[in-house]
């Protein structure tokens, strides 16, 4: 039984069927209806900002006419609004048919029927939210050098109904819990920040937040750490071993594995904006991406991670799929449309941020599988190195090769032991040589899930949720450096 109940399912079905009835004259069509409610509350420097509720409804119509396909997005879900959207898509498809990239017959046909639901539950009242946030804010106010404190709670409940002319009929409900807190310490000369944002699928309530350690204890810890960083020396410059936390591994996986494996990038669709990829179609099945310790799984079916679902937004059913196995590149992240163009097998990754944008290849949950090393075993293998945690800065070239990433904080590792703190830790490298320097992968005890709600890509631009999970990992001989002294 879906938490949203039969009322919403029925209500959305009526709208989708209304659109479908208007589309019956076309041989190829699909319709995606979304209804979403969202609430964002924040407390900054002890003061609550106005709560922001959003109630959003939109439809994405896809139809073929004149042997070409066009999309039409609309927030007007009345019959008149849907008619106008369909008329504009028909007119545009025919007017641009002479220069189409793909004939209608090559577009994906979805047949699966089903329902899916993320973890769900009751939320918090406004009063409960503000009480919870004030407690966190107060816990960070430990010292006059804590010059900025911020707590933000965002909850979202999203329903999507998808129909396709080939027969698909899919309903999915997703709840998101997006908590974030940050403390900034400043001595007047420089500032150091520590943050914490455990983003997951599910209901935003006190129970979930406590299970995520989104607590006053964590708030106190990050404020204390921000103060400690003010006193810390700069991260040393040199070539050294690096041990990365799951939070930083999230960024590393995202930028240097997830994005370069997106098939639409490999096909060149994103070259004008988000960029190309160094990966070629001929690399799949043969390219040694990393050491044999590297196993990357694409898994939208992992409930609780930020980008879980049963069907993507073209209606393809989701299945766990290895992208990299024992270090060898296996499969791209290509939805049905891209896979059809490339002559490759699809995975369910064609996604929209909302129905006002068209489906493009996306990551969903892309996870690095745990290995066998305990945290202590990894640290003990390092004669000289740096532990780094929580991403702060990220930059990579448009083909996803040369990167430079920075973290909020680090610690020296000397002779197998964690030592003192360092500030402004940065490292840089090149994608393949970096993953081929992977020397140890942490066990499940070190494994954590994370992700971001704001992965940007596409023209027109889209920001979307992606989930990542990783254990702690050890890399050898990495170029590290700190801030300017």
């Amino acid at each position, binding site marked *: 039984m879906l938490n949203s109940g039969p009322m919403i399912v029925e209500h959305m079905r009526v709208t989708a069927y209304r659109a479908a009835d208007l589309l019956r004259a076309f041989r190829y069509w699909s319709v995606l209806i979304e209804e979403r409610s969202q609430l964002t509350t924040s407390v900054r420097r002890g003061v609550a900002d106005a*709560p922001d509720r959003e109630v*959003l409804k939109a439809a994405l119509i896809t139809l073929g006419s004149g042997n070409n396909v066009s999309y039409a997005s609309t927030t007007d879900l009345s019959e008149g609004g849907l008619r106008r959207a369909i008329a504009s898509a028909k007119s545009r498809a025919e007017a641009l048919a002479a220069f189409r990239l793909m004939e209608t017959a090559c577009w994906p046909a979805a047949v699966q029927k089903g329902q899916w639901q993320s973890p769900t539950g009751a939320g918090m009242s406004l*009063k409960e939210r503000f009480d919870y946030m004030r407690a966190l804010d107060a816990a960070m106010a430990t010292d006059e050098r804590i010059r900025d404190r911020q707590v933000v709670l965002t909850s979202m409940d999203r329903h999507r109904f998808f129909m396709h002319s080939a027969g698909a009929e899919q309903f999915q409900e997703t709840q998101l819990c997006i908590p974030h807190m940050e403390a900034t310490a400043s*001595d*007047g000369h420089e500032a150091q920040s520590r943050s914490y944002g455990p983003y997951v699928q599910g209901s935003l309530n006190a129970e979930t937040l406590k299970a995520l350690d989104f607590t006053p204890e964590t708030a106190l810890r990050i404020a204390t750490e921000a103060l400690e960083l003010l006193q810390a020396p700069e991260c040393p410059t040199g070539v050294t071993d690096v041990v990365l936390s799951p939070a930083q591994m999230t960024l590393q996986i995202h930028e240097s594995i997830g994005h370069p494996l997106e098939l639409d990038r490999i*096909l060149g669709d994103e070259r004008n904006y988000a*960029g190309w990829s160094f990966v070629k179609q001929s690399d799949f099945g043969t390219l040694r991406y990393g050491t044999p310790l590297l196993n990357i799984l694409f898994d939208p079916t992992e409930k609780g991670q930020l980008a879980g679902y049963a069907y993507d937004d073209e209606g393809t059913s989701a299945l766990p799929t290895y992208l990299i196995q024992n270090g060898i590149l296996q499969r791209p992240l290509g939805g049905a449309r891209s896979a059809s163009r490339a002559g490759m097998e699809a995975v369910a990754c064609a996604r929209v941020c909302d129905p*006002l944008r068209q489906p493009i290849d996306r990551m969903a949950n892309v996870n690095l599988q745990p290995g066998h090393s305990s945290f202590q075993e990894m640290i003990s293998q390092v004669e000289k190195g740096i532990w780094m945690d929580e991403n702060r800065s990220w930059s990579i070239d*448009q083909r996803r090769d040369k990167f430079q990433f920075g973290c909020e904080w680090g610690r020296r590792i000397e002779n197998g032991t964690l030592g003192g703190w360092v500030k402004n830790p940065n490292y840089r490298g090149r994608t393949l040589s970096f993953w081929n320097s992977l020397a140890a992968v942490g066990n499940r005890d070190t494994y954590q899930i994370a992700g971001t709600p704001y992965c940007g890509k596409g023209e027109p631009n889209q920001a979307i949720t992606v989930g990542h999970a990783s254990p702690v990992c050890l890399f050898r001989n990495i170029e590290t450096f700190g801030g300017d002294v």
Partner: protein
Amino acid sequence: MTATIDDYIKALPGVLSALVSGNERLYAKVYQEETQYARLTQARVNQNGGIFQEQLTLFLSNGLSMISMSVEGDLPSPDQIRGLVQALREDLPYVPQDPWLTLNETPEQLETGNAHGSMHFDALVNTLCESAGKQDLVGLVLSGPQVLAVCSSLGHCLIHRGGGSSIDVSFFDADYNAVKRVRRDPDLADIPALMTGMSQDLKALQQPAVNIKAGIYRAWLSAEALGELLSTISWNGFSVDSIRSGSSPLNKLYNGEKQLSPRIHLYENRQMGDVPSFTSEGFLLPAEVPLIQDGQAKNHLSSPRAAKEFDTNINSDSGYPSALHLRGGDLPDSEVLQRIGTGLYIGRLWYTNISDPASCRLTAMTRYDCFWVEGGALVGPLSPVRMDSSIYQLLGEDLEALGMHVHQIPETQSYGQRGWGSSSLPGVMTALKITL
């Protein structure tokens, strides 16, 4: 459609004023866009679509408490607005007081910008594909009107219109050489010449790539490359909250510890940038705010709420600049290569981030038309390299010259909705630290 949305907006102050009582204030923000788009790959239409988007955001306050609700869908009728206001009213007692809440009690009226239709979208797309010939054309065409309005129960009615057509396109070759052009409201008749010019520029890149070692090089940063760096600093560089909390990367500029070259005069110029010049709280914004003058910090940007918290003047909607203007210098574009002598011509930078906030050190990768220059002549395209330099060096000690010509750089972002306006920047002759 424009007449309908205009009627809706102009009736709103009356609708809102009928729904409040006592100390209540009711503000509404309306956004509408009707955009057509075409994504091009290999000079073919890869994906195309239309976006009809309407959103109404209501802000209800009573004393120092406020709550807001955005509704996307059909724009609500007066009766539906009454229902939404009642829902907000029921929540309001649970919202803590906000001592920094600031609303403009003086009703203002303003209409700026121009409504643009999508007169020749199909023809524009087809002409681009046809004129590209055998070139690998990739990019985005957008076309259509957009409008933003703020109305209130006090009588505010502030409207900005924009939109129009834009092309943001590149040519690529198999060796990853590429050139890019962005044009706002292009004339159809000019498209073939634009494509021909891009072909010629791509040919200039089709030489053996030059690999350079890490080090410091004299470099010309085009207006687009400089714009990429300044947009990253803009995240939290100029807002009064960031500056007072010490987290602005320009903290040392604002506390007087550092300064830029005296030739740097940077403004937030909403008038020149053609962006909305009002806030959601009904305040009108100045046409121009000097941010840096003679290389020294002059003003920060303060939203209404931040202005009250930090006791400053309101001069921004959000604290983020949206229309930067850097005053030009004396170096003609035609003399740039000669002035470089031996060094780098950087057409565009990409994926900039702050690698050391305290020193405002920025890292980015080269992209598109970047060249190695020797003896005042282009030698060949630069293999992609990473820069990692402090803004205090780039626009401070290492700044040799500012370009004479100030380029209009249209905003191309479309997250959530189409961006507005443009920035106005010259190129700069400076030195870059190359690291990888």
